[in-house]
């Protein structure tokens, strides 16, 4: 059984300019107020303000909200990338995220080498990764290109490879940031099918998206975010209407 439990989660991003990033200014600033009033004050962006949310098996949650409302930050908090500065989060279940599928790829290494590194990064052992190899090979349709360094790949080929590896495991909790707009037509169809398999196997799904069709297809409830606050959680059509009314 999988769970995600957020209680009063707060995330603030400090915005550092050249001054506050500098140790010199920091030390001079301690000496007295003459150096400039701004020296000690950091600008802070309130990315998430006191979010409480609880998800269990069967929940398919879609996150909606304008750009900068905190959707991606919330996903990253759930994925454990940002630890909240206040409040607590508890996650039970093997978690996988499809946010940036080409993350951490090494352009000088071959496709095969990158598959292994990516697999290790996702927590698989070398052997486990290799057991998924035929599946990945056939899905990417990259053939002999997999022996070449990634710098010879086109953007579409990179995406195929990244997508194939990232989706080779079936996580219990699946986190998706914006549906991946995938290369050519035939690949887009294949990718959609593979994604469907993953989303239906997951115990909990959390998706951030702007596309109403995607949300209607994948989710059974939506959460509306505004300025880092959770405005409302409810049925898909209802929240969508409210979101669209907001404009």
């Amino acid at each position: 059984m999988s769970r995600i439990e957020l209680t009063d989660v707060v995330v603030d991003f400090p915005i550092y300019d050249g001054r506050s990033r500098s140790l010199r200014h920091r030390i001079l600033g301690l000496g007295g107020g003459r150096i400039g009033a701004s020296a000690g004050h950091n600008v802070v962006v309130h990315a998430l303000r006191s979010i409480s949310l609880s998800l269990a098996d069967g929940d398919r949650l879609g996150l909606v909200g304008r750009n900068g409302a905190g959707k991606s930050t919330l996903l990253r908090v759930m994925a454990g990338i940002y630890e909240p500065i206040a409040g607590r989060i508890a996650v039970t279940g093997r978690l996988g995220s499809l946010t940036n599928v080409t993350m951490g790829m090494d352009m000088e290494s071959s496709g095969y080498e990158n598959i292994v590194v990516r697999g290790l990064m996702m927590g698989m052992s070398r052997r486990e990764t290799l057991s998924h190899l035929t599946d990945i090979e056939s899905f990417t349709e990259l053939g002999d290109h997999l022996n070449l360094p990634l710098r010879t790949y086109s953007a579409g080929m990179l995406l195929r490879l990244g997508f194939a590896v990232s989706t080779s495991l079936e996580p219990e909790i699946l986190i998706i940031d914006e549906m991946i707009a995938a290369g050519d037509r035939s690949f887009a169809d294949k990718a959609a099918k593979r994604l469907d398999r993953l989303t239906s196997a997951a115990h909990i799904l959390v998706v951030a998206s702007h596309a109403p069709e995607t949300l209607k297809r994948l989710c059974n409830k939506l959460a509306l975010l505004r300025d880092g606050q959770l405005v409302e959680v409810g049925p898909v059509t209802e929240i969508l209407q409210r979101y669209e009314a907001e404009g």
Partner: protein
Amino acid sequence: MSDASEESRMRHDLRLAWLDLLMAARRRHLIAHLAWLDVRQRYRRSVLGPIWLTVSVAFQIGAMGLVYGELFHQDVSSYLPRLAFGLTMWGLISTMVADGCMCFIAAESFLKQEALPKSMFPARVVMRSLMVFAHNLVVLLAVIVIFLPLPGWGALLALPGLALIAINGMWIGLVVGLLCTRFRDLPPIVGSFMQVAFFLTPVIWVPEALHGKWWWLVSLNPFASFLSIVTDPLLNVPTPVSRWLFAVAVTLVGWTLAMLLFGRFRARITYWL
């Protein structure tokens, strides 16, 4: 905040820091692989590949050995081995410190995309530095064969010394990596510090040349102790016990400091990137 909750918070932070180290240890294959990729990056598209690293060190030692040997009125056959061991060990120490500064900054794309243990990245720097250092072994072996009597079993004492240096590289990476991520003007400062430390440490000069003056430059210099515990066994001279004690003390103090700092600010690293 009251003292009690302050203390329990610190305990909590320390536990998470310790957990982070354990998780990193579990991912040692990934760390080794990333370190190896870093090393291979240096070979890429160069014809000489790994040999290049080795040859450049050999040239450096040869040239400096002749010039400085003459300058310091040293007999080449006794000066050159010291210089060879000293320079390569200093190379290891200074890359661990300099690259340690960048360990989290360079890993931004990883840390912002996946929940990975933070201490993986200083460990990657230590491992990479050791791999690059290993390229010097051929040169060091050649120096031993040409200039020194065949080493006995005592030379193996260099290995625990090397291990202690690596253990220290890890805490240094945690500390400077964290500070440099927060204060971006620190890496050049650390660079200058290491430059000065190089000249104050008996790497290109020999302690005897001081004739007893400034004795503290050697005996109170942690770098001198760390050099001594590796190079003395190789040169077949006994390592003073005080050097080992000093090195171990630095290790303990350093790790305590690193755990407190890492515990307190570990979670902030992704925010600072």
